[in-house]
């Protein structure tokens, strides 16, 4: 499996449909979210990470406690 850096590098240098490439890239959603926080928004890396986060959203699991009877 490619690392996030390798996937981003591939997206940055790609000539083609980035949306399609991002959709089928296998990356860790939490890693993408963390990288997006520090990435420059007006950079090719920022563009690639935003596309990756679109298809790899961080899932928030809500655990509800049942009221005691």
């Amino acid at each position, binding site marked *: 499996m490619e690392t996030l850096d390798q996937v981003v590098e591939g997206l940055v240098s790609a000539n083609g*449909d980035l949306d399609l490439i991002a959709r089928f890239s296998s990356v860790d959603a939490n890693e993408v979210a963390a990288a997006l926080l520090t990435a420059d928004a007006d950079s090719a890396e920022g563009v690639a990470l935003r596309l990756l986060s679109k298809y790899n959203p961080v899932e928030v699991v809500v655990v509800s406690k049942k009221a005691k009877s």
Partner: protein
Amino acid sequence: MAAPAVILPGFSASMWMQSGATPSALSTANLSVWAAQVATIVGTVANGTGAAGTALNVEAVPAFGQDDAVANFSVAGARQSDKVPVQSAPTSMTITAAWNPSDAGLLLIRGDAISGIIDRTFVVAAVSGASTIAYAFNGRVSQFQIDAQPGAEAKCVFTVHPRGGQYGWSNT
């Protein structure tokens, strides 16, 4: 950066392209990056730096975007069919410009049309004051015609065919 909130009729549009004879078109990701990428193609009058670009003096910027393409699927007996968006081609831009045999930009276009395989980055810049919204795309030039009517100024007409999926929006 946030896009400026301005009603579009207040903008003036201009067209720019990479100035090299055999340019390296921007990668798709960089087509959405203003700083040091798209800005180098857009001239200073449109808030860019213009180091690697030249203006294309066109009479009007044609419509751009994506062509409509749908497929109909129907089930026997059903009242309505499904209209499903299918592979849509980007809009080809047929552009008219006043023909000036010394215009560097038009000569590059003519050379691209002769070659037919030169990928070049084009930018449509909409400018309002210090705000610029840029639509950048990679394309190849095909047809190039000179219309030299004796009763009017000579014009040249050419068509830019965008490469599929290779476009991006950016702004100052």
